[in-house]
């Protein structure tokens, strides 16, 4: 059992843990852990000797994903009285079950992929896909805006892993560009959550459902035509 497999299994486990837990604090710590896990991957998969470039990427990634973001999140959550995700749309056991289903889907998809690329590390592709799905499940099933951001992060981690598998030698500036976009994006989300909190003094997204076209009795447009 190689290092990579261990890392992958840890990754999957963290995802499942997030699906199953309710405390925002736990989410943040798990996210930080994932940051480290995916951060070190290039060292493991890369060619024998680590180039400067790789080292730089690894450093920035870990810095951003497992230091910056957790700090940002906890910074945001400071002053929130609600520290736990309450009555999510999908319960914890249910979302665990969903997670298992997602795992199945991930395995199914990666089995249909031509294996010569992924053959080297059979677990990486499924794990990557799985944490993408897990992130999506988190976004769909939870109420709190923070949780959704974290779900987005989980998803990003998955994609990052996939990137390492599929494009081990992607140009540096693209990596950095991706990372930059991620940072800015998460910062913006953070600011927004801040405003949401200020507007509604809580971070549930329930209140964020005023803009919609769904009215129980929509006024038929043509009815006026009927009137003389």
């Amino acid at each position, binding site marked *: 059992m190689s290092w990579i497999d261990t890392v992958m299994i840890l990754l999957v486990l963290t995802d499942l843990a997030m699906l199953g837990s309710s405390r925002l604090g736990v989410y943040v710590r798990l996210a930080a852990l994932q940051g480290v896990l995916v951060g070190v991957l290039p060292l493991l998969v890369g060619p024998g000797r680590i180039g400067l470039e790789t080292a730089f990427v690894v450093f920035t990634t870990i810095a951003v994903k497992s230091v910056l973001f957790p700090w940002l999140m906890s910074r945001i959550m400071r002053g929130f009285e609600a520290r736990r995700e309450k009555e999510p749309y999908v319960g914890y056991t249910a979302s665990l079950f969903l997670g298992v289903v997602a795992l199945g889907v991930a395995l199914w998809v990666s089995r249909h992929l031509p294996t010569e690329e992924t053959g080297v590390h059979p677990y990486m592709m499924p794990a990557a896909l799985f944490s993408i799905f897990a992130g999506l499940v988190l976004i769909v099933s939870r109420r709190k*805006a923070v949780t959704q951001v974290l779900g987005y992060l989980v998803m990003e981690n998955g994609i990052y892993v996939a990137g390492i598998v*599929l494009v081990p030698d992607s140009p540096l500036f693209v990596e950095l560009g991706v990372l930059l976009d991620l940072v*800015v994006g998460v910062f*913006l*989300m953070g600011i*927004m959550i801040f405003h949401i909190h200020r507007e509604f003094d809580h971070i549930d997204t329930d209140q964020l459902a005023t*803009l919609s076209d769904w009215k129980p009795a929509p006024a038929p447009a043509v009815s006026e035509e009927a009137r003389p």
Partner: protein
Amino acid sequence: MTWALVLVPAVLGLQSFVTRSNTWRRVLLVAGAIGHFVMTAMAWRNLPAPAWGGWLELDAAGLLFLSITSVLFLAAACYAAGYLSREKASESDLEEGLLFTNQPEAVFTGCLLMFLAAMTLVCLSRHLGLLWVAIEGTTLCSAPLIYFHRHHRSLEAAWKYLMICSVGIALALLGNFFLAVAFSSGGRSASLALSSLTQAGVTPQLVWLKLAFVFLLVGYGTKMGLAPMHTWLPDAHSEAPSVVSALLSGALLNCAFLGILRVWQVLVAAGHADFARPLLVGFGLLSMAVAAVFILGQTDYKRMLAYSSVEHMGILALGVGLGGAAVFGALLHAVNHSLTKAMLFMAAGGILAAYRTKTCSGVKGLARAMPVTGALWIAGFFAITGTPPFGVFVSKFIILRQAFLGGHVWIGVAALVILAVVFVGLALIVLRMAQGEAPEGAGTGALRDVAWTVIPPAVLGVAVLALGLWLPTWLEGVLQQAAHSFGGGL
């Protein structure tokens, strides 16, 4: 030159973040727009040299979309200058009357210019990875614009926009990876530079290619507003300031469309486009149908315009999917739609400023109260529904004709029926707003035509009308080139 196109607006944007005076900012905004416009115009005379090892290069398609963006931004900048001079720092909310403050103008102007820079980068980039970065960049620059009015609805809109688009774009990134794998040879994954992907003789692996296209379509499709990933669009367009909505609808959606087109270009070059045609056609029809459903009986006229954008994005996808002349039609349609929709959104901004409501039922007697705005509103309605003699009619006609010629009679008929439903929905709303007795106090106070809300859209309207009567050869040439690169053309 190529660099200048990106850097000028970017630098000006940063500049306007730091400067003190607001008037100076507006000057910067308009100056940036004009400069960009001039540079684009020069690019028409002779294409600028590729930069950065060919990763930044202006080809026909890029030039086309760049020009759309530039023209729209110029109009929007003039509009915005007047808009900002009128907008107070804090005012009462239209729906619920609670007080809210606007974003500081620094953020607004800065983001606007950065937005332009990002969109320019999208049009210029010939490397799919770079393209991805740029498109994500447009999302990030435009989110604060949507949240210009700091009240909870615009906050909600911005949040949805950011969340949904980020998720979509993330999937697109994965699609890029798959694409690289598809073209990889001997364990070494290919560069995502368009030139190398489209060069002759490369044989991608089909499965990866399909996966890549699926992910990229879903990802960029989210940004482009194809149903059922369009859900952010009506909220964002209805809550953002009208000038921003105009840019989102007229320029941003096109940039996402360009993203899809680039991938399509790769498929065409590899000779694997056919498996994807049904996808595009299906998404196209679905988007049109969904838009039609939501336009019928819509109560908010800015949402109505947003859904109409969804419909037109559907038409674009349909056109590309049909191939042949329809690709040409789709590109022309992109031009027409951008001009018309921007015009409509600016007119809507004028109406909103005058009537202080976004509900259709709250607006009556527009044509009498504000004759010019009313005329623009009605003309825009006829134009956007593809009624002659406006440009949209021509492009729509090309696409439909191709549908029939290609033997997809039923697709053509379905499209015609959906378009008719859209027409009915829009007609009922727009005419109710435009006709009737003028409300009291018309012609005085807010209820009158204001130059800055009228002139930019009027100019755009004239352009659309001209495009309906005559297709200039220079435009046709570029359209042809672009269409050829996307496997179509007359």
